[in-house]
């Protein structure tokens, strides 16, 4: 994505939300959604628009897992590491996903397609173990079914 388009997306997010009370989070969500990350070089624009300091915006961005400062892959896979999933074999799922993708948590595959992140409970404990791919949650997984999911996600791209 070229810089000016990035900047444009940031300005759009600011304009769309700045009149809201507590506009910072909605702005960040929109930027994260549109760009897959919050570009550090444009934090100053957000701060300026809301009359905050760069430090304050940085504090919020770095506080929430939801926001990242490096671009995400096209897709995000979140593996649940909370109690229920761990009790139902979540660690094996975790290992299988890492193996299949060839990356660790907070990393993106070399082709820039898939980012792997840990999550602590998806609210799907009755169907543990669970993962989330983009906005879709999958439950009652086995190492096989999770490999299949990743396989189909990859083939979908090509």
């Amino acid at each position, binding site marked *: 994505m070229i810089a000016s388009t990035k900047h444009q997306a940031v300005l759009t997010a600011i304009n769309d939300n700045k009149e809201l009370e507590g506009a910072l989070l909605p702005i960040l969500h929109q930027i994260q959604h549109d760009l897959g990350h919050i570009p550090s070089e444009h934090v100053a624009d957000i701060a300026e628009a809301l009359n905050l*300091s*760069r430090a304050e915006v940085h504090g919020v961005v770095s*506080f929430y897992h939801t926001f990242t400062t490096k671009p995400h892959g096209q897709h995000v896979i979140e593996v649940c590491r909370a109690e229920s999933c761990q009790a139902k074999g979540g660690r094996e799922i975790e290992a299988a996903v890492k193996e299949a993708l060839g990356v660790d948590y907070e990393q993106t595959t070399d082709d820039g397609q898939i980012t792997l992140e840990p999550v602590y409970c998806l609210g799907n404990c009755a169907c543990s173990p669970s993962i989330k791919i983009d906005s879709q949650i999958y439950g009652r997984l086995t190492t096989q079914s999770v490999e299949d999911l990743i396989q189909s996600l990859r083939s979908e791209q090509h």
Partner: protein
Amino acid sequence: MIRVEHPNDPNKDYGTPSAVSLNDLADGVAFETVTGTIDGVDITVPKGTSIMRASALVDINIPKLCATDSVKAFGSCRLCLVQIEGRRGFPASCTTPFEDGMVVTTQNTELADIRRGVMELYISDHPLDCLTCSANGDCELQDMAGVVGLREVRYGYEGENHLDEVKDESNPYFTFDPSKCITCSRCVRACEETQGTFALTIENRGFASKVSPGQSEAFIDSECVSCGACVQACPTATLSEKSIIEAGQPEHSKVTTCAYCGVGCAFKAEMQGDKVVRMTPYKDGKANRGHSCVKGRFAIGYATHKERMTEPMIRDSINEPWRTVDWDEAFEFAASKLKGIQAKYGRKSIGGISSSRCTNEEVWLVQKMIRAGFGNNNVDTCARVCHSPTGYGLKQTLGESAGTQNFDSVEDCDVVMVMGANPTDAHPVFGSRLKKRLREGARLIVVDPRRIDLVKSPHIQSDYHLKLMPGTNVAFINTMAHIIVREKLFDADFVAERCETEAFKEWMTFIQDEKNSPEYNEAVTGIPAQDIIEAARLYATGGNAAIYYGLGVTEHSQGSTTVMGIANLAMLTGNIGKRGVGVNPLRGQNNVQGSCDMGSFPHELPGYRPVSDDAVRASFEQAWGAELDGEPGYRINNMLDAACAGKYKGLYVQGEDIAQSDPNTKHVEEALRNLDCLIVQDIFLNETAKFATVFLPGSSFLEKNGTFTNAERRISPVRKVMEPMGGKEDWEVTMGLCNAMGYEMNYSHPSEIMDEIAALTPTFTNVSYERLDKEGSIQWPCNDESPEGTPVMHIDEFVRGKGLFKVTEYVPTDEKVTRRFPLILTTGRILSQYNVGAQTRRTDNNVWHNQDLLEIHPSDANDRGITTGDRIKIQSRSGETHLTAKVTERVQPSVVYTTFHHPESGANVITTDNSDWATNCPEYKVTAVQVAKVMSDDKNSDWQDQFEEFSERQVEYAGLDTEEETA
């Protein structure tokens, strides 16, 4: 039963701020109280007081880490937990308000176990290098480990930790060592609440939490302004002064007053022997309330800089090297020269200039020497070139040559109008106090051609930024009044009761003239009519409205007129004589107010009384045993003109650098060269001293006793912490010269001079060193009518009786823009440097500003093919100099701006001889200029080349090391 209203120990940390405002406390306003019991002690405190503070007030000191009384309670460290009868659990005492009937226990075994457990966690991730740590002896973490009886850390030290975090040493004055950080957020909160810069945050969360300047940057690359509030708030060694790391903890301290700007902050000079190791803002300082800026807090290295002049020197002409002599020879040499001049050219052919950087007592002696010893009134002071219109304008309208409020008053403002002032740069501690009030909801009108930081910065936004063209202040202020009258928003009752009726009627006729309407003046000031109409409505109807102004008001051909216009506006709306309102000049230098009070003007004896008044003169003649001249003497500009004309031949200059600071440098230099004897008394070989034939070494504020009077009329003590490097305090030098002149002075301590001041000056009658030592500071008038001093003036009536409305007709300046000189140059200051820079240029503050730049708007820059970093030529009718360009939208089109902190910049080569009609205060703020890119390889103008050559030669003559000192 112990009833506590306010703490009296400025060296104690009460944990959380007072629940009662300073102003309410000072005025004795009644407040609600609550009564309960803490550890068996019955206590009554103001409602809203935290349990922690209530306890501290009776010396029950609950362990704490994240709480300090300069910032709001945070409740994060979990060390200050207590038990409250009838409540479950262990609430934090910092965030829990004390209530009626509450029974609190602060110490028992359960609480002790919890606290020890908390400390164990902290210490499990903290270096165990207490003995070699820079905070050893001044570490709250260490203290708390002791208080809770920490004996072991069950978790061990091997787990994941932060001990390998890298230290940030980018700031020249302090270091940030994250390995020692306990993430208490005190620094972040101090940066936000105390300073108002919001440069810091805590990034990430949980174990990864870390203090981050800007976006995870080094301190120097962030918005940090190096005020020191974070360092002050830090409970550990995480944020430490480099001077302390190098020298160790101080072993004694003295409270004194900062020698930089007119805010007059109180500081503790923390010492090891006769060496200052740290300056820390003093909590009981009533001007600064425990806050500081980069200059007062850190920039004191100049005081012991290698270029300090410590020996008297004389020479017969400026074209020969100096000879070092002893004090007596220097005094004899100077006195015989001056006497010789008087014998040849007459009594009035000599005079002197006092300094706004010196103490009241020193200034008093200078004017006394000139009046009684020289036998004339040729005394003036640097206030001539800054706030003389304030003295004149406020005397005329209100009856006293001083601001009407104290700084605490800002806490009661509802509307603030800042005109021609840049408080966050030039008066930073007041700037922070103002920003705090603005964050609480006060409204703001900024009147300035340039976009200063107050217009918009984190959590601050002006309601109106009225960008007027330089030189149109009077048209602006008249328009404000016109609108308020036209819309009948003025306080008719106040005017009828408090002001002179006839004068008001005359003024009403004048102000209603169409020429003062916003519609007419839109083209004059450049301010859209609608904007000024709304701003005027806000000022008149928004509640308590205060005007704060600076040199952008005074340094104009109509400076005095604008000051009177400001006073008119305040009287018209009844915004005078109570808290939260008033007319507030922000004085430039530490003792401008004092040097004016002390009779430094050629037409006024101390206390602003005319020399022509026989009765006043008689009282001085009797006390001083000398006949005094009833004719006003020369002002600085008259002295210079007369010197050029060959009529004025001898000049004594104490601590002022007219060769750099006064306008039209070439004219000043010509005058100085024409003198037969120029005596300069200064701590450095300043630009003026390079034209001198007698040099008398001065003493810094750390080397003498005395008092400074700040912008709020507050007289504060200056205390000697080290011996004068030249062997004499400045008042002793003046005394030596005066005695050599044949007029005997015999003081053994400045307190004796203050006694003389009090005896002869009605506004100082009850001021004494004894009282200053006891009370810390006093705001004049302090006499039998106001025995406690006067925080707010003109309460029931004006000093002159009735307030006087003055007709303030707008007369455009003669300094016109033309095709040849199409731009207006205006000048100002920057945070890190101070005035002519003699002090700050000799400190690490140069890291932030090592040269004066010319700010120019992109459109003007484009027209001329100028980009940031280009060397450009600035020409006015007076002269030409070269500076480096900075293209910025801070300035508006057709206005350019620069600072004057560096002598080689030659900012005053450009400025003209135009001045205020009433006081001759130079019109620094308006000079018609042309700018163009320098095409040749010649980096400097002819003047700059000559300056460099002359300066180098003079430095050599003085035997100084010529090597450039860089940060």
